[in-house]
């Protein structure tokens, strides 16, 4: 079964169409990356899957079930998203405990205290952080909380929108290790958006290069590592990363 299936997907914000005719199948358990420059529509695809960009046509299905255009609890149980900026994605007046319990309350799940404790341990945060507020945490700790919140509903698919680009290099390494470990332990499927190709090389199995709202190339990470990308634009991106 495919974790995510996108067929003839077009996405618009109002009158402006930003993603054109995207077809993509991501098998369960795979880690897939979308790369491209700002404005290429890669984050928009994640937002459409998560239900944050409802103005789309085509088909989106998640774990075999078609996604509706509305907020959909069944889909939320299966797919969760982690955002780029851990300074902006946590509610400043809610404690970590409240932030992590909220998805459980919405979905009517019990055992909240235990689940929160277990999740804090899973993402490598000490229990003493449980009743703190986001401003008392560093950027890396906040991103751990954001990942923990996404995992509270035990989803199968994680949508990661530049999860480390707001972090320092050493903290980025910690978060990347964490993501890799969680994926192994919980058998997650990742759909990662980034413009950092080394991160793709570390964390992903396949990647798609996007430009102007279209996918120009889908490649294996092995191809990326051996610089064997077909499209001139993909090579350009690779060259910019490696530097002249």
């Amino acid at each position, binding site marked *: 079964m495919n974790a995510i299936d996108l067929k003839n997907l077009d996405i618009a914000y109002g009158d402006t169409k930003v993603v054109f005719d995207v077809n993509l199948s991501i098998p369960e358990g795979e880690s897939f990356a979308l790369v491209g420059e700002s404005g290429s529509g890669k984050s928009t695809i994640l937002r459409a899957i998560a239900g944050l960009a409802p103005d789309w046509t085509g088909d989106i299905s998640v774990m075999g079930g078609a996604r509706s255009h509305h907020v959909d609890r069944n889909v939320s149980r299966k797919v969760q998203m982690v955002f780029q900026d851990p300074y902006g994605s946590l509610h400043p007046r809610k404690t970590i405990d409240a932030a992590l319990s909220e998805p459980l309350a919405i979905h009517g799940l019990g055992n909240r205290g235990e689940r929160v404790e277990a999740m804090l341990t899973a993402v490598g945060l000490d229990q003493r952080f449980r009743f703190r507020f986001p401003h008392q945490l560093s*950027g890396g700790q906040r991103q751990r909380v954001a990942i923990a919140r996404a995992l509270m509903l035990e989803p199968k698919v994680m949508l990661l929108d530049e999860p480390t680009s707001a972090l320092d*290099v*050493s903290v980025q*390494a910690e978060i990347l290790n964490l993501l890799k470990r969680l994926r192994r332990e919980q058998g997650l499927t990742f759909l990662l958006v980034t*413009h950092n190709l080394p991160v793709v090389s570390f964390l992903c199995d396949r990647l798609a290069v996007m430009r102007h709202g279209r996918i120009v190339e889908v490649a294996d990470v092995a191809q990326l*590592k051996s610089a064997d990308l077909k499209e001139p634009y993909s090579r350009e*991106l*690779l060259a910019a990363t490696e530097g002249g």
Partner: protein
Amino acid sequence: MTAPLLSVQNLRVSFPTHTGRVEVVKGLSFTLGRERLGIVGESGSGKSMTGRSILKLIRKPGEVTADKLEFDGIDILSQSEKQMRAIRGARISMVMQDPKFSLNPVMTVGEQIAEALVTHQKLPRRDVQARIIEMLHAVRINDPERVAKLYPHEVSGGMGQRIMIAMMLIPEPELLIADEPTSALDVSVQAQVLDIIDELVRNKGMGLILISHDLNLVSRYCDRILVMNAGQVVEECAAGQLENAQHPYTKGLLAAMPVINETRDELPVLDRTQWAGT
């Protein structure tokens, strides 16, 4: 080598907190000739504060002390605000991180660049216009006459940063401080912007201080690198010698970065307990 352009000895910057003054830069010393110096470090290492204190941009209650902070024979710390204004922009200028927040939203690009020039030199209006167009050309903006009439919200991030650079270089300063000039930009545009800075700095024989958290980037564009951690320089080396870095912090930073040809299953993580602080 002739007398250095900038010499800094025992620079300290501190801010008051509830529990007493906290030093964010702890006794930094370096000299800079007409060369390209990179300052690398993580958030909170004091690298930006170092850049700002050279321009005397740290306001109260922050406090800057140094045994020596001399730019071309001028003692920066004893300069009045009025004297500093003659130095800022004209002789030392600074490119900030994000063009979105550093450009004036209600002035056209041309007016802003003109302001930077006219503040320091009296020039006939026609010459000012010619210099602006020439400068925009130098930062590789294709259609300078049109771009000069645009407002900042009408240009892209990369173009905005090139406009910032044009503005900072038009008074022909002797020292340019670039504080994370490309971290708000796309990877593909980053190289372009740095190439432009690099070319202009070389051609005009200016000094450059490039402040960044990206070790590779700095090693590509600088001659010499200072690695900072918790307000102190932990390592100084020539850019080409970065792979042979000695200090565990520098080594840790280098190892923590994933590479394009990644084979490691897990990235090594810095053991922060080794260096108290941040």
